[in-house]
């Protein structure tokens, strides 16, 4: 009823190929954007910004980058954390070498560096596939984190070996560093994430996206129909690493404020990979759903005992939390192995034909 598509006629190819051929989808997205741009900023507390809104957006962006590579182009990568690190360190160096640079420009530029590194580590993908490629990207993971520790120039020879975000101004307002307000940072992150999402949706729908999907589904067949595998795979590595690098720069500059090399170690790669898998490989929406489940839910669950008035020790809550989230992950994967995005796709389909299923 709510999702009745009857009567929405398409009279041109353009209309048929539109981003949202079903009107309700566009309305739903409008509502979500309204919440994200207007209602959340009006109601959110500092705590909500710092533990829910900003990290969910950043993790979703990182997962989106990985999803382009793994979900669309079919190249399994375990190096996401390190590529995020490249973005973060590149942004740090850009900001400290060129202090006059606009922070947003620096963040967007830092993705270029991680794209370059991504392409270099993507070269083995031309020869090896699947799990073997995963091992090659694992090498990137170990090598890059080692480099962040050893190459003191990267952190400006800081005694602590960590990078610290300075206070950065944009048009007279602090956007980064301890002086920056959460609302400002949220809008900045939201703006960049919206932009990147738009870019990713359009890339995956276009010629390039189809090339990637063909590569993923069967690379020999793709080659036979004239797809240049080298180009397709390396572009996937570049685009994916770019998005991941931007996410890494946001991660440190708009959220954490400081980072030691081991922050970008393998647990971060796994976390982003889990978001992509649980959200749904080969989907854009899934990254957001996955990030809400993996990043947002534990924070909310931690608040529950106190809100209900139960006095459980903090350590016990943490243990329970890990168990509940773990259980939920298994539950969702059993119910829908293709991820949360597929779950939504099914729900939507059912809504469209409701109340008369075949």
């Amino acid at each position, binding site marked *: 009823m709510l999702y009745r598509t009857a009567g929405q006629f398409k009279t041109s190819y353009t209309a048929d190929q539109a981003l949202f051929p079903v009107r309700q989808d566009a309305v739903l997205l409008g509502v979500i954007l309204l919440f994200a741009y207007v209602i959340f900023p009006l109601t959110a507390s500092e705590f909500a910004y710092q*533990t829910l809104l900003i990290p969910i957006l950043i993790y979703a962006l990182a997962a989106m980058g990985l999803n382009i590579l793994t979900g669309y182009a079919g190249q399994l990568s375990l190096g996401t954390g390190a590529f995020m690190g490249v973005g973060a360190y590149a942004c740090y160096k850009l900001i400290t070498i060129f202090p006059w640079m606009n922070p947003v420009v620096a963040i967007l530029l830092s993705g270029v560096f991680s794209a370059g590194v991504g392409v270099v580590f993507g070269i083995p993908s031309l020869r090896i596939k699947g799990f073997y490629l995963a091992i090659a990207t694992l090498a990137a993971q170990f090598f890059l984190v080692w480099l962040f520790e050893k190459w003191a120039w990267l952190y400006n020879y800081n005694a602590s070996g960590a990078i610290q975000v300075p206070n950065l101004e944009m048009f007279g307002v602090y956007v980064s560093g301890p*002086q920056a307000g959460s609302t400002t940072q949220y809008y900045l992150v939201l703006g960049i994430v919206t932009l990147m999402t738009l870019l990713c949706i359009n890339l995956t729908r276009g010629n390039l996206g189809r090339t990637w999907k063909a590569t993923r589904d069967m690379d020999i067949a793709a080659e036979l129909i004239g797809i240049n595998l080298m180009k397709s795979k390396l572009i996937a590595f570049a685009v994916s690493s770019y998005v991941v690098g931007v996410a890494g720069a946001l991660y440190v500059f708009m*959220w954490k404020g400081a980072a*030691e090399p*081991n922050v970008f*170690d393998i647990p971060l790669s796994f976390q982003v990979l889990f978001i992509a898998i649980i959200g749904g490989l080969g989907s854009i929406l899934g990254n957001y759903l996955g990030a809400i489940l993996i990043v947002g839910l534990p924070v909310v669950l931690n608040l529950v005992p106190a*809100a*209900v008035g139960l006095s459980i020790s*903090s*350590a016990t809550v943490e243990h329970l939390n890990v168990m509940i989230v773990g259980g939920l992950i298994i539950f969702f994967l059993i119910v829908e192995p293709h991820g949360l995005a597929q779950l939504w796709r099914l729900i939507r389909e059912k809504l469209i034909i409701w109340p008369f299923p075949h």
Partner: protein
Amino acid sequence: MKHFTKTAAAAVLGLGLGTAAVAQELYVPNLAYRTGPFAATGIPLMNGQADYFTMLNERDGGIGGVPVNAAECETGYSTEKGVECYEKVKSDALVTQPWSTGITLQVLPKTNVDEIPILAPGYGFSPMADGTVFQWAFNMPAGYWDAASMIVQHMESEGDLDGKKVAFLHLDHPFGKEPLPILEKLAGEKGFELLPIPVGLKEMQNQSAQWLQIRRERPDYVVMWGWGAMNAGAITEAVKTKYPMENFIGVWWAGHDADLRLVGEDGAGYKSISWSFPNADAPVMRDIQELVIDAGLSETNPEEASGVFYSRGVVISAILGEAIRTAQEEYGTAEISAPQLRWGLENINMTEERITELGLDGMVPPFSTSCANHTGHSGGWMLEWDGEKFIKASDLMTANQDDYQDLIAEKAQEYASSNAPWPTNEECSATN
């Protein structure tokens, strides 16, 4: 539905009680790590910290008549959970106890904005000693640079260091690299050869490569800046390679009873510099035993409660308690605010008499802080494992601060300028 109504009613009741309880208390949250990879050291520390405040609440009704709420927020030593906890507690907290170098580095820049003091006793960032720059951060009773200086003094007391070789086994992490500038400087002055041997975070438990190197190089001393699983790994390797234990010296985090108990008698002679000592006969420990542990208000067990880390937790809470008391006296109010506590932390004077009054006999060396000196630079004792427990193997030593006074100021200034605008305390005229 009935069940739901009950739950909802309980929730409303709970919220009511919750707000009622906030009214009259000193809220000193602790970002604990009882879970995660470092839980083995976290649990005794947290138990010691919590038990001291429970004891104060039971014995004196809190501090200045106001009960202390030392609620914990679990981080599992993860920086992300640390941010979550910090945001959760910061609206009411008097102090932040971050308990990890990573969380400290994240919270440190925010202190000038949020105006909540950080208490990072004996960890964190050595330049924090400069109170004029780091107005809101404290790491008393002593810092890593003090420790490095005292360890070198100890080695020197056993004979001239000229021409000797000292291996520096350290965690390859900001924490492990912290004393390097001091050790390098002293190596140049005293003429010993310093051999830094890093242990990566991933190889903490398997240090065969590092110990092979030690066996080959035959250093006269091994100095260890270890943490968590690295200590047990190093100590068992040292026993295996038959390195003379009396020449093996660790920082205060490497003096954990449980690590040494693994090797028992074989570990006899191992040393660890420390600015806390477990004295079971101290009045404070007896009070805790009687009012907290025997009353069933603690999560600790007897073996743990006699250890170095438990007593360290007690000492840390006692220092915080003393700061609260100092602030209460200065401002004439029992319910102090966070900026008032900062003043208290800045004006601690732990003399021998005061330590006895607090019942901490022999558990912490005397020290005092000022607006310029946020570390206290207390002395320390060289503890030695006798096969069963740690004993004091030296008199109270004091660090030779002249060696790094300039370095503290320089590094602090460097931090301030890279984080501009960074307000410094211009009124403070005392020197570090």
